[in-house]
């Protein structure tokens, strides 16, 4: 919680305003009984209406001012509460955007979502409440104790013993509550994650008629959430009965002790009554306090989860000599590059070396799981090589600023992810301020323009999770257009034409060739990389052959085997 304290700082004036207004309301509230007493004592009892009108008028005036103060306070308090909430969400999201991929493996998406919404809400609620009522409780408790002491020290000592004792009990419960609420939030993560999974896989679940199975899975987690919630809330709700009982017993003791003192002259009857009155006030303050504390423990549990994100160490940008704004040519060189994923047992890539000249096209072939995609991810520095180094235009890639580097790379991943938005926006993603003409141009090159024109609103048609139904191939082509529009110096196509028919694929590959950028193509079919200047053949993370199609046919057994397997089939078909 302390670590989130700095978030109040930008709102210090509003906070001070809110607290002072609360203070002012408190003062008016304390004056009210005095005024009422005056009205009754001076006015009603004496049968004199003038004091009734006078003090009554003042009372009304004051309460109206307090009302206005209260209204203004509402604005300030929610300004602080919502402002802090906004800033927290902003910083969290900013931070998450800086996450490296491995961080996502540590905190899964579903949990990040819970934290950004639910956890922040907990903190907001607590803050709003603190500004408006939390201050009262401790002030009342403290004030009540001091007043009791001025009345009778001996009797007040009983309060002095019992109040801290009860505080300790409350604090113990709160500490327990914090741990329990943390468990609740974790269960909420699980619930979130199952829902997300089910939404993503809804077709599959329907196809395999596994609805009931998934419901069972969900029910289990839901049950755990229910139990943890119960446990946490029930513990926290214990504070109130305990506090009330404790204070009530303390008052009985005061009365008993008071009666003894009365006998020996250590206290007067009026003093006993007064101390008892303060005891009652303290007790009411305590009940408010326990309510605030419940919210505190929730907020405390959530704040830990937020701090975890905010303090996550993200990849420090290794900027030695940042070559800002430098246009890259596109010569890519791998020097004995090896790579393994964090926590992985073995190397995914093992001692890879090759050179891709500017404008060349490089085909990458290899069995499923041989490391093709991993190799791709090293180029835009989504992951860093664990050994060896990669250079672009003869300069180590770690010397490029990531953003600058990525700006000049167009990558089309295996799975075409589209965002909710129009077709135009989705293609325009590739390049900031891309003109509509550029977007259309890219769509044409990706062979998707004609299809777009058949859509109900053409380029303004919504796609993504809330958009129209697109086939796998259509998504792939949109995602290729997104890469082309940025006019990259290096283009990475990760098996991105798998859902396309041969004709479309051929057309796209030809228009890419015109882009004159260095192109890397991962493919399954030799036909897709036949014209490549260089073909790299990967096997279990090692580069087993490189060269042109003709060279490889001559030199590599593995390559010949693949080629034969594919050709044979093609030929059979024609026969």
């Amino acid at each position, binding site marked *: 919680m302390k670590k989130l304290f700095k978030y109040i700082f930008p709102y210090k004036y509003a906070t001070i305003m809110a607290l002072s207004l609360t203070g002012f309301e408190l003062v008016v509230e304390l004056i*009210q009984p005095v005024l009422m007493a005056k009205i*009754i004592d001076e*006015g*009603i009892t004496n049968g004199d209406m003038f004091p*009734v009108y006078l003090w009554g008028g003042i*009372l009304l005036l004051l309460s109206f001012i*307090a009302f206005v103060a*209260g*209204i203004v306070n*509402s604005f300030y308090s*929610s300004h602080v509460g*919502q402002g802090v*909430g906004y800033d927290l*969400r902003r910083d969290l*999201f900013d931070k998450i*955007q800086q996450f490296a*991929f491995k961080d*996502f493996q540590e905190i899964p*998406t579903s949990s990040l*979502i819970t934290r950004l919404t*639910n956890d922040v809400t907990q903190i907001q609620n607590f803050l709003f409440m603190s500004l408006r009522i939390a201050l009262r409780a401790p002030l009342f408790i403290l004030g009540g104790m001091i007043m009791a002491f001025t009345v009778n020290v001996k009797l007040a000592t009983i309060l002095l013993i019992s109040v801290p004792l009860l505080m300790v009990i409350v604090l113990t419960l709160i500490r327990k509550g914090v741990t329990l609420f943390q468990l609740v939030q974790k269960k*909420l993560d699980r619930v979130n994650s199952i*829902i997300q*999974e089910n939404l*993503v896989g809804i077709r599959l*679940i*329907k*196809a*395999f008629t596994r609805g009931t199975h998934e419901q069972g899975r969900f029910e289990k987690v*839901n049950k755990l959430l229910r139990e943890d919630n119960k446990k946490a809330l*029930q513990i926290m*709700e214990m504070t109130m009965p305990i506090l*009330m009982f404790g204070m009530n017993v303390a008052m*009985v003791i005061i009365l*008993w002790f008071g009666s003894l003192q009365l006998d020996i002259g250590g206290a007067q009857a009026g003093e*006993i009554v007064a101390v*008892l009155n303060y005891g009652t006030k303290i007790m009411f303050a305590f009940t408010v306090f326990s309510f605030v504390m419940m919210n505190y423990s929730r907020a405390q549990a959530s704040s830990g989860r937020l701090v975890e994100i905010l303090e996550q160490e993200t990849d420090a940008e290794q900027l030695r000599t940042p070559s800002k704004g430098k246009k890259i040519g596109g010569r890519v060189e791998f020097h004995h590059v090896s790579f393994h994923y964090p926590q992985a*047992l073995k190397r995914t890539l093992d001692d890879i070396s090759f050179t891709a000249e500017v404008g060349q096209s490089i085909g990458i072939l290899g*069995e*499923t799981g041989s490391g093709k995609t991993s190799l791709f991810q090293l180029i*835009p520095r989504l992951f860093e090589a664990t050994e060896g180094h990669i250079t672009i235009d003869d300069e180590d890639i770690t010397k490029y600023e990531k953003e600058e580097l990525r700006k000049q*790379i167009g990558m089309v991943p*295996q*799975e075409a992810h589209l*965002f909710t938005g129009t077709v135009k926006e989705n293609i325009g993603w590739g390049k900031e301020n891309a003109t509509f003409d550029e977007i259309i141009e890219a769509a044409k090159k990706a062979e998707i323009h004609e299809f777009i024109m058949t859509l*109900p609103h053409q380029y303004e048609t919504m796609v993504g*999770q809330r*958009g*129209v139904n697109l*086939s796998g191939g259509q998504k792939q082509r949109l995602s290729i257009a997104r890469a082309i529009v940025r006019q990259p110096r290096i283009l990475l196509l990760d*098996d991105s034409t*798998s859902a396309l*028919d041969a004709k479309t694929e051929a057309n796209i590959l030809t228009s890419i060739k015109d882009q004159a950028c260095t192109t890397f193509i991962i493919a*399954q*079919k*030799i*036909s897709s990389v036949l014209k490549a200047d260089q073909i790299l053949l990967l096997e279990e993370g090692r580069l087993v052959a490189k060269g042109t199609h003709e060279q490889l046919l001559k030199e590599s057994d593995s390559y010949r085997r*693949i080629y034969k397997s594919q*050709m044979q089939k*093609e030929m059979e078909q024609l026969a």
Partner: protein
Amino acid sequence: MHKSETKPKAKNMKGTLLRVLGYANKEKALLSWVLFMVIASSVFSLIGPYLLGVAVDDVIAGTNKERFLLLLFGIIIVFLLQSAALFFQNNWMIGIAQEIVFRMRNQLFKKLHMLPISFFQKRQHGELMSRLTNDMENVSRTLNSAIIQVVTSTLTIVGTVAMMLWLSPLLTVLTLTIVPVMFAGLKWITNRTGKFFKEQQKTLGDMNGFIEETLSGQKIVKMYSQERKVIEQFAEKNGALKESNYWAQTYSGFIPKLMNMLNNVSFAIIVGIGGILEIKGSVSIGVIVTFTTYSRQFTRPLNDLANQFNMILSAVAGAERVFQIVDEKEEQEDEGKAVSIDRLHGEIVFDQVGFSYDEGLATLRGVSFQARAGETVALVGPTGAGKTTVISLLARFYDSNQGTIWIDGRDSKEITRDSLRKQIGFVLQDSILFESTVRENIRFGRLAATDEEVIQAAKEANAHDFIMKLPNGYDTVLNGDGAGISHGQRQLLSIARALLADPALLILDEATSSIDTITEMKIIEALEGLMKGRTTFVIAHRLNTIQNADLIVVLKGGQVIEKGSNKELLKQNGFYADLVRTQQQKAIM
């Protein structure tokens, strides 16, 4: 949708609340115990201080010590009972509340599985997730305390008003004059909070949707260095949420202030008019003084009640969003005469089938073809030709708008969805994996399968070797997004899953697109064994994988333009022959 909701709000609210409470049907007995405890604790909270007062009088009067100690002992007992009643009412209420929340969540989740695929097409995952978490959280928060508070406050109010009436009906009426003003004020406030609570839950859902979508596409965001852009977009959603939150909270904050002021006004009225009456001699001073105390006692629970009402509004805003989904139209009920089938033979006939996802835009038109049991049908055509749609219709993810699909001579609409799908093994375009072990992911195909059968299926799909290389073999836990294994490997797992299901009908939608050709050949060999005796539908772009199909259906623009065997179609020298040639050429060049 939003505008029309404002009018019948009061009615909706009551209905929604009753509906939420309806989930506690089984807990009715416990709920009445809670109410009993609330009454008990209220009574004890009156008796305790009263006895304490008596004891104080005793001390002052200095009467008999024994009676005094006995009294003190009695007081402690009463307080103990009060705390016990408090404890039980809270404890049980939380149990009931969480039970309600549990059931609502379960029902909502169950509902998701009964909705048609088309429902999911226009919605963001994160937005739906928000209904199950954030909206339910609102309900939960309110249920935990609201019922108890409402009952306690109502009891206090009724008691106080009764006492007031007994003392002086006239002054009571005077005190109650503020009630209409109060209601008017409350109505003014809650009309606004109600609206903003709804707005708040909606924007929260929106934001949740945005976060989910962005984070699941994080790779693209990074790759295209669009962090700044998404941060900007997020700021917009964040701002909208702040705005509605801000007003909801600000207006909520007005309630206690208003009540406090009215409380003082009522005091002023009582003493002002009471004073005049006293001078006239119609009420005594004592009554006025007692009355002022009661009027304070009367407004305090009213204040609580007003706050609770506000909390309830926020719960209703959440509950309504939950019920909105619960009330969605389900995947059409299987028709009354629909029968459940045991084992499919596998004869499929498409008879002039037409379908469109959105009105106006026809995806399929007049599609007709026939597959005998055990045959392999290949669907070929450019992207967007409607190949996947044909399969979706076959599995009844959607129902055709025109024409009929006959399965074993029966209209597919007359077969229950579940029994039909149980007969079909799917390998879909996107290989979806669940956050679970490799073993469980394969077993998804047939839950009752033994470990040996799972391994057997993995071997047939050529997945066994790579699985054994994973850190924990079959017990390796896969991330939801399949991180750690490649796309092709995910396809292998999907195939193993379908193999395990041992279906009568097999559907392979681009099942091997991301698998290298050598592995693919091995799989096809395995699949060929599997395809024997089963009707199989194959969608593939690599035409060599489908040349042995019994029937090739060529689709273009949602229509069948050619159909026949590989040989026949080559002879026809049409679109298909053209496609094959393009691939050939590329291969030969």
